[in-house]
């Protein structure tokens, strides 16, 4: 397991629609909370001029959670929004992805989430592409 893998799946689980994750993970293995789901805020920052120094744009709601599976594996989650079930499921999934169960969880949870996220992104990009202006120059008299 590399950090990049884990960084990617924790992000994917965090950005997944909570209801969809609940469908994909209807039951959870036994686990205990190191940090019960906690709702808070993260200050979102921007850059002046898009590329300059940072400034505070405003906060967004975040729920974080840390769990331990019975075999001792730890799972962490920080997810956007205020859904405690989402944070718990994401933390459990993070732990499971570090166990022998990872292949199954990748296939049953991560793959559909990744596909659906890509589809969603592509659907919007396709609509945006259809509104791209194709300029054409009107024929000018002096050219003839």
């Amino acid at each position: 397991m590399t950090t990049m893998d884990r960084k990617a799946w924790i992000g994917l689980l965090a950005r997944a629609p909570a209801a969809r994750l609940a469908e994909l993970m209807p039951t959870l293995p036994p686990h205990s909370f190191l940090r019960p789901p906690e709702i808070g805020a993260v200050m979102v920052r921007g850059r002046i001029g898009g590329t300059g120094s940072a400034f505070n744009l405003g906060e967004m709601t975040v729920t974080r959670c840390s769990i331990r599976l019975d075999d001792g594996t730890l799972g962490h989650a920080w997810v956007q929004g205020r859904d405690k079930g989402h944070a718990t499921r994401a933390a459990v999934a993070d732990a499971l992805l570090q166990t022998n169960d990872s292949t199954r969880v990748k296939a049953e949870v991560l793959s559909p989430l990744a596909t659906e996220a890509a589809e969603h992104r592509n659907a919007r990009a396709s609509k945006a592409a259809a509104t791209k202006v194709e300029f054409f120059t009107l024929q000018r008299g002096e050219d003839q």
Partner: protein
Amino acid sequence: MTPAALTGGFADAPLQSAQAFRSILQAMARPGTIHDLTGALPPPPLSVAAGVALLTLADPSTPVHLAGATDTPAVRGWLAFHLGAPLVGAEEADFALGTWADLQPVSRFRIGQPDYPDRSATLIVAVDHLEPEGVRLCGPGIRGAAQLSLPGIPALQANAAMFPLGFDCLFTCGTRIAALPRSTRLEVL
């Protein structure tokens, strides 16, 4: 981060931190009174009371200074997970932890500015002995006089003399806590 760093926090943060905040508020409002502060298990050498006070008061926007023997990998990991508070030198700290000896010289800590006396540090001092005896306390929040077993009395008297500037202190011993705001005057009997 070790698994030990992830344990020992509040189980029910909203309720427990509200209760702990109330106790700390009482301690601060009634200097010299001793209150129980429980509900978390920080790694040693932090006392339970010091851990609970930090969980209640500190967050990513309050820089913390770990003095002397308090600065261990276990404590750093625990603070990172449960508080997210940045660790800084004494001069920038909102909160500082350690024994009285570790915290010397206390002149390093922020005492606020005349127009913003609140921009000052709170020292969370670990003591071996915390009893209502010894130096006499008087001032706001004390009916008549109170007594508290305190270290470093000359430095604390000097701090009180700077009022409204100065740092504030919380003294912790196991699960017990008492407070010494800068407004309290100390008289050696």
